[in-house]
């Protein structure tokens, strides 16, 4: 077989003849539209892929609740939540561009293969025009690439790897969540202030894109503060027993343990580290400390008393005093009886931001939406003014440094906001060390 000039168009022509002869006496139209899954009926479908099993299942369930709430608010049910405080007033609770919002959900199992399969069937079978979700950067990177190829918008949920908007950034993908670099930049000065300038740290790192970039960022910033690294040990994402990784820590000469773990991994590794007596040992004449660079409320809940006093960073916290946060906590709390987590806030905000961008662009066409979101400045969603940078589709806003609450007032009062690091302190150039090598490419409207 030689390389022929068989083009798609000519093949379609032959295919059409064959197809016509195949079975159908009545062919009405060939579906023609400018982009993938153009919603032509009275409804528009969003696809939410969240982990419902696996180490990040807790976060996934919270994300799903937030998505459902966002869809309610978009369709004008409930109290409107953040739509009241959002700086853009394009949305009015009548769905998106007059179309009622529907959604489909799928389980990513915290695995890239399963996540791609779920997203693919949403696009091909259910006609989803936007995909959101994902609680693992591995999954987010994989699904973002799929959405780029298929020509739909991907609004990243919980993904904290530098690569999502660095090496693996895509024109059709947007990230509201902060990233590993920002965490490290915000956390390093606080850690130095808390624990002193000369510390030796030992890292356990989840072995995938997020863990790698988180470890690299922490190493760079902590060494910048005069700390030194003893070693960085990679642990498989699926592991649950960290004892063999934790056993050598206390006798290694390190006096700080940094856990680059998230979700169920972190709950297990922190609990087990505490079982190893790490919180009440003195090493090198200093109190041994544990640091978890990325903390969420759900992890704090899973870790229970062990979280008390542990420092880390967060994208958002329900105890923030601004109007947006208050509105969201009221709305979510009434619906589900618990305060929302940062994962919930991110997914809620992403859904609203997408709907708003469509309304402002007056089109579901991904390219129009991309244009509406690039460089978009907004406020009123919690954490203050935010901008979606055009060069890498990363949202820039203030970063919270949090600490496990030593004396919680109630069962949800688990984290204290220790400091709000202003956005200038965590800003970086799109092509700086941890983010270079990527290319947004062109927006892809698909069909």
């Amino acid at each position: 077989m030689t390389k022929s000039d068989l083009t798609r168009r000519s093949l379609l022509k032959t295919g059409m003849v064959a197809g016509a002869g195949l079975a159908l006496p009545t062919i009405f139209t060939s579906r023609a539209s400018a982009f993938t899954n153009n919603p032509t009926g009275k409804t528009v479908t969003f696809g939410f892929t969240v982990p419902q099993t696996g180490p990040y299942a807790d976060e996934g369930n919270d994300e799903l609740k937030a998505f459902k709430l966002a869809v309610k608010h978009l369709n004008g049910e409930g109290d409107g939540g953040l739509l009241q405080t959002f700086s853009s007033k394009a949305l009015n609770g009548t769905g998106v561009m007059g179309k009622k919002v529907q959604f489909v959900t799928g389980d990513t199992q915290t695995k890239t293969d399963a996540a791609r399969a779920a997203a693919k069937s949403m696009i091909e079978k259910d006609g989803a025009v936007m995909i959101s979700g994902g609680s693992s950067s591995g999954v987010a990177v994989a699904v973002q690439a799929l959405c780029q190829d298929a020509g739909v918008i991907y609004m990243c949920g919980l993904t904290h790897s530098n690569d999502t908007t660095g090496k693996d950034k895509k024109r059709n993908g947007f990230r509201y969540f902060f990233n590993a670099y920002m965490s490290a930049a915000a956390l390093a000065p606080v850690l130095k202030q808390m624990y002193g300038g000369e510390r030796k740290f030992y890292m356990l790192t989840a072995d995938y894109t997020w863990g790698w970039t988180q470890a690299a960022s922490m190493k760079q910033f902590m060494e910048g503060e005069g700390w030194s690294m003893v070693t960085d040990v990679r642990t498989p994402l699926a592991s649950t027993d960290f004892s063999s990784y934790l056993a050598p820590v206390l006798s290694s000469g390190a006096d700080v343990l940094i856990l680059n773990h998230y979700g169920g991994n972190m709950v297990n590794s922190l609990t087990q580290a505490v079982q190893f007596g790490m919180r009440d040992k003195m090493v090198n004449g200093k109190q041994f400390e544990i640091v978890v660079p990325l903390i969420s409320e759900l992890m704090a809940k899973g870790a229970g008393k062990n979280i008390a006093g542990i420092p880390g960073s967060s994208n958002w916290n329900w105890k923030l005093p601004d109007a947006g946060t208050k509105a969201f906590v009221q709305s979510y709390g009434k619906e589900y009886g618990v305060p929302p987590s940062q994962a919930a806030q991110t997914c809620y905000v992403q859904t609203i931001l997408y709907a708003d961008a469509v309304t402002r662009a007056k089109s579901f066409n991904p390219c129009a939406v991309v244009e509406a979101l690039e460089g978009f400045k907004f406020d009123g969603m919690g954490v203050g003014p935010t901008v979606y940078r055009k060069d890498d589709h990363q949202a820039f806003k203030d970063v919270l440094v949090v600490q496990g609450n030593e004396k919680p007032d109630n069962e949800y009062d688990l984290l204290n906001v220790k400091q709000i690091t202003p956005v200038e302190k965590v800003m970086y150039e799109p092509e700086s060390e941890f983010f270079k090598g990527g290319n947004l490419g062109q927006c892809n409207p698909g069909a």
Partner: protein
Amino acid sequence: MLGLSKKDLMFLMIVTALTLAAPILLNPFPESSALAQFNAGYPDLMQRIAIFAIFAVGFNILFGLTGYLSFGHAAFVGVGSYATIWMFKLLSMNILPGILLSVTLGGIFAYLIGFVSLRRSGIYFSILTLAFAQMCFNLAYSVLTPLTNGESGLQPELSDPRILDAARAGGTVATPNLFGLGMNATWKVEALGRVFQFNAGYYVCGVISVLMFYLALRIFRSPFGMMLRAIKSNQHRLNYTGLNSRPYMLTAFVISGMYAGLAGGLLAAMDPLAGPDRMQWTASGEVVLMTILGGTGTLLGPVLGAGFIKYFENIFSKINDTVLHSWFSFLPKWLEDICVAIIHPFVGQGWNLTLGVLFMGVVIFLPGGLIEGGQRIGRLWRRKPGGNGAPSAKNAAAE
């Protein structure tokens, strides 16, 4: 013709026809009806069914004919996938080099693993294959990260060399294609209230799976196939006749490994990302489930099993409470709630429960799988199961 008996030829023709018409047959319900939920005629699912049918048919050549239960075939799928993605990265987005390499590598890996594992039989063989596959999985996940990109999965990127493809303008990675025909090219036809999707990728998978089916058919009917069955019925006796059965076993193992490699290659060609999870032992377990559920040792059984499991996985897992309530909305409220509560555990997130129950039922009551079920029903209705594949399958099972 084609070296087949008249009956087999008929059988093959029917399988071919079903494969080609799948986009229509799998979309029986109009878009607007509540039953549209059950339509399976969209590219991703059809591709998966065809690919896993290849995998299961290949697995059946080993397990069905010789009775050796391998718990490590997923490793070959993984190897095939990685091989294809690497061809995408290095050579070209044309799927042909990748698929050829995936079959070759699947064969080589199967030879190496089979050579060692076949020194033992019974459960020892199963554990050896399992151990090898888990080693591959764990290594792909950890130290082989430069080759596999670990947990995140390997995918083609803009910065790859891709020496045969000219850099495409526009800054996007080209879709995998066969000489310019994109695997995601779909021709949608709206007719009779339904949307039929004729997808290039599916037809590539479909045609290959028919070819592979034909190959399996020839193997089943060949003296070589007969030899493999002899191993299953009594390997000791065979050895005492002075025949060395191991080369036959190894050949069967390598053939099934190549089938698995091909399946892996096609998976990566349809969706250019290879994650390590497809090598895990649970993935090997899945192909065992497919083969048994459909009917071990029959030709059509594994295909049925693959279709059945993939259908359940993709369709039943999507039925949530909202859908259930809409089905029973015609009932009084209390009755509706009861019906939903009864069905709820078996659909949506609970589809695995349905699968487990069905699987146990098949093992307990229908050791011959769905094929045997079909035959029993056929006998029950006293109607000759004319040309639906059962007769030849039955012949195969009887031997």
